[in-house]
């Protein structure tokens, strides 16, 4: 695992991601993945969504929405595996897989939002 001095940095990312996830994911998930597919609400048109996603501020918003919650996941999931399932002997591997996943997701989000 990282040195104790790095733990604060990862905890900051965890905490920031926790705030973003708590505030933004419920409404995003409800609209796009529940209400629109079930036709509870009229889904916006493709053109409108694309023009929205191309606005600079919305790009930043979507980047934050994708990136920080992944680091939140990485921290929590890591400790769930350590403590919950007691797999302490795989510490290094779990660390690399969790944060590697978060970094990869962030890179994909950056690419998609840059190229959209």
């Amino acid at each position, binding site marked *: 695992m990282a040195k*104790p*001095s790095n733990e604060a940095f990862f905890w900051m990312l965890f905490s920031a*991601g*926790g*705030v973003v*996830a*708590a*505030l*933004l*994911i*419920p*409404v*995003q*998930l*409800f*609209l*796009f*993945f*529940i209400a*629109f*597919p*079930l036709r509870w*609400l*009229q*889904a*916006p048109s*493709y053109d409108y*969504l*694309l023009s*929205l*996603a191309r606005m600079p501020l919305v790009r930043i918003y*979507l980047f934050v*929405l*994708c990136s920080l*919650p*992944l680091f*939140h*996941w990485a*921290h*929590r*999931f890591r*400790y*769930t595996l350590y403590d*919950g*399932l*007691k797999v302490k002997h795989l510490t290094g591997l779990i660390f690399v897989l969790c944060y590697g*996943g978060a970094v990869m*997701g962030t890179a*994909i*989000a950056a690419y*998609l*939002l840059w*190229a*959209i």
Partner: protein
Amino acid sequence: MNEGATKGAEGYTPFHPRWYRPHVSVYWWLGEWHYLKFILREISSVFVAAFVIETLFMLSALRNGPEAYAHFQQCLRNPLVIVLNVVSFLFIVFHTITWFNLAPSAMPVRVAGKRLPDALVAAPSYVAWIIVSGFVCWLVLR
């Protein structure tokens, strides 16, 4: 930070007498509601990650044109995907509530030397949640 402690430990030979350790089952969190709640809260992070992956797929479909986006929407209508998303939603709302309610314990606010009631410290988070959700709805649905 703990240099003194580390130096002091250098001459120490790590010896772990196993027989003094009580055995903790892998299912230690199933017995009591508080432990179960803790594990459910931690598991909510998996649904957070799943949501992000789903959103990345949506952005990718949006980028690839109207047909790709229509196909993605078709996939979202699959009953299994709907069930998964409803379960995700419940877990993430659980995360939101536990997260907001944790704030007063993590950073107690004091006014004139007295600690503010927890509900009063948590309340602004809920207000912010409503305002932000309302704004996102307005932007997407207008």
